């Protein structure tokens, strides 16, 4: 068997829940795996539903020819963005590096297989979008039979180029960082800087393309995607291959993906060992002098342990603190440029005023801060170290209280800062500010406790790479997606209801609802702890 295929097959098998299911005799574990699969399939269905209705919208307003390019751009953007977050964990500094590199595999083979593994693992998400949009497209266009296989085949290639590009950025960051003594810190800072740059560029690009004022939102998006497609050729090739059945465009997309893949891993392979050596090495000063030690309460000691775990992993820090970094930047921007400018940038075509958007402030902030609750992945992140907390005289509820406390320490200060910034720039009253702070706090209590419920229920300790539970774990997926969609809905709802009733009453109702949800989630955590003890 070809070594690339052999390694790829083994990598997939080694993280396959189906393989665990097949060889495990523990009924409880089998049940968890089945539950995990059902949960993930529900998420695929949600994503498919969202993509399908988006495509339907295009069809209804007669813009169905824009659906292929929109599909390609959506998949490209998502694959690029998610790969930036994952590339460090998948390509570099993984747990079984020593074992793999001591076997007769070329470094470029290991790197390429790791990339393909990452690609195959994320493919179901992209195919969910693509297949749903294909169904929508077929309903509104008079597409021939040939379009279906072309669409499906090319959907496999659409995420490749953005993922390669994101991996290359990750490689450059890793290579640059490996020259420093504090490799992880430099790598974390550079990754943050790059993601922030991407966000900034995204808004600048949208602003640039949306300068021509068009009233109809969908038509506006359609024009924007067409304009971006002019620059991003692979998306245009996908669209041309579908709409005009251009074989040359199809070949270009497939060919460029293959060539870039070959070139990238030839480059990465050359420095692969030196980068990993630097990342796996730790300089030791060996100059510690015993100093006065401080005593902490047990819950605080656990929270501190969580903090050290959080800051000790680039994957965890970049994924966990991205919302905090973004909300801080947006808070500053709102202070400098005003709240109305932010609304104008995010939703330029929507007839929204600062007054209308004001009740949504806590939800906008929560969208960023609640996007990732460390409590959702922290139980799984104990991994092989789980024996430490298991063997110590720590009650389960104390352990999870410590984990929840850390998430609150992490998120609440940023919520306070952003709420104050937004309220100042929106010229909200002090009463409103206090109400928004209370709502922000109760929402974070809910996200912390609900994340903990997901984390305990879908705890997975046998991971090979921490990115598996941080980015792709069942617990995180089940926490993240419904939370994200519900918050987006709440933003719309608070704006809509805020124009019909007193926004203070609305905020009080939201505080009540989120408090009840937070209490229920907390009680569920305690009940899960009792069961586990």
């Amino acid at each position: 068997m070809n070594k690339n295929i052999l390694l790829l097959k083994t990598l997939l098998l080694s993280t396959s829940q189906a393989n665990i299911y097949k060889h495990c005799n523990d009924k409880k574990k089998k049940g968890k795996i089945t539950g995990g699969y059902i949960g993930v399939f529900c998420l695929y269905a949600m994503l498919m539903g969202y993509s399908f209705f988006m495509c339907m919208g295009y069809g209804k307003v007669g813009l169905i020819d824009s659906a292929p390019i929109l599909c390609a751009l959506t998949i490209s953007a998502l694959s690029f963005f998610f790969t930036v977050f994952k590339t460090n964990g998948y390509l570099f500094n993984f747990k079984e590096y020593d074992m793999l590199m001591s076997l007769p595999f070329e470094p470029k083979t290991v790197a390429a297989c790791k990339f393909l593994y990452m690609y195959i693992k994320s493919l179901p998400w992209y195919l969910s979008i693509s297949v749903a949009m294909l169904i929508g497209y077929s309903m509104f266009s008079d597409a021939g039979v040939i379009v279906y296989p072309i669409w499906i085949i090319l959907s496999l290639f659409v995420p490749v180029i953005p993922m390669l590009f994101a991996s290359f950025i990750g490689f450059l960051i890793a290579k640059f960082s490996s020259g420093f003594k504090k490799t992880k810190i430099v790598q974390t800072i550079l990754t943050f800087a790059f993601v922030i740059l991407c966000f900034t560029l995204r808004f600048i690009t949208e602003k640039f393309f949306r300068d021509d004022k068009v009233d109809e939102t969908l038509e506006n998006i359609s024009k924007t995607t067409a304009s971006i497609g002019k620059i991003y050729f692979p998306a245009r090739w996908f669209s041309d291959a579908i709409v005009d059945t251009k074989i040359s465009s199809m070949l270009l997309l497939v060919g460029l993906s293959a060539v870039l893949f070959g070139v990238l891993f030839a480059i990465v392979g050359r420095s692969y060992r030196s980068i990993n050596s630097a990342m796996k090495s730790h300089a030791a000063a060996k100059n510690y002098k015993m100093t006065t030690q401080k005593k902490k309460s047990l819950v605080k000691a656990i929270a501190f342990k969580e903090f050290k775990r959080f800051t000790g992993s680039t994957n965890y820090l970049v994924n966990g603190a991205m919302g905090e970094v973004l909300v801080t930047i947006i808070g500053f921007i709102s202070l400098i440029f005003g709240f109305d400018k932010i609304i104008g940038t995010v939703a330029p075509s929507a007839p929204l005023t600062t007054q209308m958007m004001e009740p949504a402030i806590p939800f906008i902030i929560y969208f960023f801060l609640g996007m990732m609750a460390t409590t959702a992945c922290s139980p799984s992140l104990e991994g092989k170290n789980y024996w430490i907390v298991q063997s110590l005289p720590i009650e389960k509820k104390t352990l999870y209280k410590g984990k929840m406390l850390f998430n609150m320490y992490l998120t609440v200060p940023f919520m306070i800062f952003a709420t104050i910034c937004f309220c100042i720039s929106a010229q909200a009253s002090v009463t409103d500010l206090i109400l928004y702070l209370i709502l922000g706090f109760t929402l974070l209590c809910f996200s912390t406790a609900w994340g903990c419920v997901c984390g305990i229920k879908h705890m997975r300790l046998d991971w090979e790479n921490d990115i598996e539970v941080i980015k792709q774990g069942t617990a995180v997926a089940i926490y993240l997606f419904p939370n994200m969609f519900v918050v987006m809905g709440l933003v719309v709802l608070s704006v809509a209801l805020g124009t019909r009733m007193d926004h203070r009453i609305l905020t009080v109702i939201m505080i009540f609802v989120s408090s009840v949800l937070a209490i229920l989630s907390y009680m569920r955590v305690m009940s899960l702890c009792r069961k586990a003890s």
Partner: protein
Amino acid sequence: MSMLEIKNYSKSYGEGKKAADNVSITVESGDIYGFIGHNGAGKSTTIRAVVGVLDFTEGEIYIDGHSVKTESMECKKITAYIPDNPDLYENLTGIQYLNFVADVFDIGAAEREEKIKKYADKFEITNSLGDLISSYSHGMKQKVAIISALIHDPKLLVLDEPFVGLDPKATFILKEIMHEMCDKGTAIFFSTHVLDVAEKLCNKVAIIKQGKIIASGTMEELTEGHSLEETFLETAENIQASKEDDNE
């Protein structure tokens, strides 16, 4: 014939102290070469460079005449490595993992079956090979790692603290296997803290302290009739004392 040649190998992490400082060792075919030193002395740093896992710039390492730096594939094809804490694929079964390694070395079906059976029976883990590695104890994982290392008849066997976690019977079997391999001409290079084992097993020894080789040679040359433990402690203390004198 020298199977492993480490020439003036140095490795430092960041701008810190050198973890390995001008290390030179030669392991001949048929040698069982012990590499001993305190925790953090530089044993694993040296071993990881030998097996091509750790990048290095200073010095040269040759395996059967091939440079680890420039001909890493040739080196890896004839080397087997057993790390101190084997990070195997936890969600594969023992047999799936062994088949993976056998596939990597292109071992035929009959040969792999014979070897896996032989060693798994010896280590008494045949019945567990169908279970997930995540369900294994540390010792069982170590046994699977050892079997995977023996599957392709390596010319050089590199082991990092191989006896940690093994039960007495498995320790005895491993020592027996090491002797058998040595008789066939395989070179064995391993690190250990267990000086009694090193004394009985090795024909050559190197002592490393703070990244530097402070003594090396055949067991007889090194111990001069004393126990290895006495020699090790004496040599290490002498070096420490001379360093303190230098500092004063």
